[in-house]
């Protein structure tokens, strides 16, 4: 039906909150293994776009295809579709009443019907990957911000998603903790998982992005490789934005 190579195909996506027209027709394809970085000034709709992708916000118009399936169609089981794309939030949103291990295993156990032992084992191996296996039985409140965000990434990974959406994952962190989270994200990017990241970390964007898009006035104002976007920005607003942020 649509470009089948694209994992995500977005067509004329619009979103308004009352009179506030945040997205005014966004078209984009996201391919498997791609690391798409979204940049733009505050309030330009980056989060809204990301949240439309997994339908945490209901688009006002337009269609979103995930693996060729129109997930904006009313007949679609969105809960099933969401399991393919996990989200990592700015404020972690770990479950404070569950241990780190339970944070990782509850979704696989309840939603994928994974046996507990298997889920535990898998969660431990994911935690080991980010060096947090000794925190498995701790509660989120006992962790630092950087550790919490790494756990949040692990929680997403535990569902074996096809892609992960990151909404400013390092913005709520103390500066000294940003590095450890970016490290994990870089490793993920290299492992070939599809990622869509909203971030203000331009160094990270330059290093790992396969494509960068710049949002302005609710549309994609510029789109290109890190080199194109950073070295040769065409859009005057992008130039302005980069001059402020770099």
């Amino acid at each position: 039906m649509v470009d089948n190579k694209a994992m995500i195909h977005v067509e004329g996506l619009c979103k308004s909150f009352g009179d506030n027209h945040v997205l005014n027709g966004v078209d984009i394809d996201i391919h498997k293994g791609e690391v798409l970085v979204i940049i733009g000034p505050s309030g330009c709709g980056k989060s809204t776009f990301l949240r439309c992708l997994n339908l945490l916000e209901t688009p006002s118009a337009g269609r979103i295809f995930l693996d060729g399936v129109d997930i904006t169609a009313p007949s679609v089981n969105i809960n099933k579709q969401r399991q393919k794309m996990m989200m990592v939030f700015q404020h972690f949103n770990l479950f404070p009443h569950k241990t780190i291990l339970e944070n990782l295993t509850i979704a696989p156990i309840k939603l994928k019907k994974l046996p507990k032992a298997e889920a535990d084992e898998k969660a431990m191996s994911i935690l080991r990957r980010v060096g947090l296996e000794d925190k498995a039985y701790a509660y989120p409140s006992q962790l630092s911000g950087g550790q919490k965000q790494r756990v949040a990434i692990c929680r997403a990974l535990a569902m074996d998603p096809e892609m992960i959406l990151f909404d400013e994952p390092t913005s709520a962190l103390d500066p000294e903790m940003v590095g450890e989270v970016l490290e994990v994200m870089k490793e993920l990017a290299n492992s070939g998982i599809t990622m869509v990241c909203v971030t203000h970390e331009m160094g990270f964007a330059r290093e790992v992005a396969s494509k960068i898009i710049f949002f302005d006035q609710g549309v994609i104002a510029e789109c290109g490789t890190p080199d194109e976007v950073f070295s040769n920005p065409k859009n005057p607003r992008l130039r302005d934005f980069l001059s402020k942020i770099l």
Partner: protein
Amino acid sequence: MRKRLLNKKYAYYIAAIAVLLIVFAVVGFAAEGAASADTGFFAEFKAKLINNFVKEDRWKYLTSGLLNTLIISFFAVIIGVVLGFIIAILRSACDMLDKKNIFTKTLNGILKAYLTVIRGTPALIQLLIIYYVIFTSPNVSKLFVAVISFGLNSSAYIAEIVRSGIMSIDKGQFEAGRSLGFTYAQTMWHFILPQAFKNILPALGNEFIVLIKETSIAGYIGINELTRGGDFIRSRTYEAFLPLIAVAVIYLVIVMILTKLVDMMERRLKTDGR
């Protein structure tokens, strides 16, 4: 921290014992004051105790009354909690779901009206209306009527307590649950309600306490609950003091036990997480 807990615990017991001692002292003085000059205080007191509680097995008015009070409270609490949680969850769903349509709006309107009416009228009037207007058949058990009435009444208060608990949970928790692929109901069940419950436990405990004491109006439809039991003894012996104090002490003890239980539960929930 541990030391403070211990101190608090002792303070609680000491205060409780002090209250009981004061009650007995007052009882003693009253009994003494009423006593004639030539009989001793204890003998007079004993006579009064016998007259009020032992003679004609009058203590049974208190025990059977207590049983009815407990039955009404217990089942009313169950109805109140179940209905209250359902109402609260439905109302938050109506608020939160982005699919706002005629159905959710109507449902929300009906629930709001229910809460307004129940919370805006006295429990006694509700009890009388349910007994005399709704269940007019004489075959309907009075206990059943009381359970329904107090259950409905407390459901409105519990609904608002639970809803405030749900709203106190960060919206991010909800989004985290949904983004993992959980349905609205699953997210509520696994993530929102457990956290909300911990926050509202003190308020819920308070509501149970209010409910138990409020059942004292069940006597108005002729149920022999605790208050009426004491009052009945008074009407037989023409002595108000001992029976009423006895009733008050029994309520006090129930409430103290309940408070203790809620306290224990609160502490248990506190140990896991945060």
